[in-house]
């Protein structure tokens, strides 16, 4: 037979440990919330004290599989990589807006980073001030929510390449990553593993010219 005082002691200790458990859980939740608040208040973008500049965006249109030029006035950072990211952020904000000609969800947050890498010249030397490769790192959320289709995926890639080249003429090639990793296709179609040429000079205009629309 267990003495009565031992039973009472046991119940008290059990109750105390339950209370401590609840208190610990609440402390943990508080700490977590504090951490999240701290992250929210951290500046995600440099303060836009720079004066607005003219930027050229190449806007995709799903209706006729085309790109059209739109010139906007934007405050842009001086750092080329931050500048490239801001330009693409604006592009994807336009695509996410209602009434977009190329609806793609995600907005500015779709582009995690843009890295600019000097390309070797003809002699194999990497020179600063020469041609550059832009590496565009999309978020996984963007890639998984991108509409699937040859046309829509091709247009997203093209408009990114041409927008970069239009504003940063040194960018002549573009590669893509998703969450920092290579990925086979954007959303099941367009190849994301290859290096894309970013140069407006290759763009043809006119009805059906690009794909031999005229009969042979």
């Amino acid at each position, binding site marked *: 037979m267990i003495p009565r005082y031992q039973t009472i002691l046991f119940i008290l200790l059990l109750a105390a440990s339950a209370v401590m458990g609840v208190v610990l859980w609440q402390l943990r939740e508080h700490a977590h919330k504090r951490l999240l608040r701290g992250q929210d208040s951290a500046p995600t973008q440099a303060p836009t004290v720079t004066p607005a500049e003219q930027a050229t965006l190449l806007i995709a249109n799903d209706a006729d599989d085309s790109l059209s030029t739109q010139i906007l006035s934007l405050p842009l950072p001086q750092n080329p990589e931050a500048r490239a990211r801001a330009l693409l952020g604006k592009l994807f904000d336009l695509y996410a807006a209602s009434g977009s000609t190329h609806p793609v969800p995600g907005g500015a947050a779709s582009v995690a980073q843009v890295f600019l890498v000097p390309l070797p010249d003809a002699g194999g030397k990497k020179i600063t001030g020469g041609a550059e490769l832009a590496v565009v790192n999309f978020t996984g959320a963007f890639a998984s929510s991108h509409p699937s289709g040859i046309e829509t995926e091709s247009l997203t890639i093209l408009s990114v390449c041409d927008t970069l080249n239009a504003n940063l003429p040194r960018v002549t090639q573009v590669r893509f990553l998703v969450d920092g990793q290579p990925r086979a296709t954007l959303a*099941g179609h367009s190849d994301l593993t290859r290096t*894309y040429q970013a140069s407006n000079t290759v763009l043809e205009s*006119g009805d059906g010219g690009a*794909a031999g629309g005229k009969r042979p």
Partner: protein
Amino acid sequence: MLSGIPISRLIPPAYTYPLLRSMDAMRVGAGIAFLALSAAVLPSTLDAQAPPAPAARFLVVIDAAHGGEDLGGRFGNQPEKAYTLSLSVRLRSLLTARGFGVVTTRESDATVNADRRIEIANRANAQACISVHAAESGTGVHLFVSSLPPAEAARFHPWQTAQSAFVMRSNALAGELNAALKNSGITVTLGRTALPMIDSLMCPAVAVEVAPEQPANPDEGAQDAAGIDDPSYQAHVAEALAAALVEWRADGMGGRRP
């Protein structure tokens, strides 16, 4: 203002591809064995040894994109893979009725990887290859040819750029499809794109992406865009594609070697 059809520009990947695909290697091996044999046997027995002569029939490869685990896109209540299969089956029966030989890359909801599809298509030695897709975005039918720069025909093609020797004729095939679809009152856009499947094909090849007949009305939600599901629209598209291929055959186009 820059308008018109964009081109996916790309440069060949920096790495070196295997020069021969295994199938080509097998052909070379078979060719050497055949030559050795032909020196030793009577000409009259050669016919029996030779591989079957290319069928007199005009061969078309229809690739129903996606399938099995690869759902493709999604619209209305069905995944893209189901739509591409039903259009492929419809087009196959139309072409067969018109005397074409037809090879399909899948006849059921099976997972067929890109390499297997390419192997089926390239082995068929076809005069036209049509890869069927469907998408919710855009309107009408989108035709895509490879964005590879055209190249001279060669006996051996690097695996990932085999289509470059066929790009000119793929453009011509896209033109034929464009004309027939427009004749049927269907909106058509033409473009170039970087699709691994198309870039490896050794035949005049076009990716056909069927989009809704009418632009989606944002007020009515996504269901409206599913006008693509309409069986009469699908039949209309299939008829136009078949008519284009009849023209393609009549023009004496096609043929594997450029």
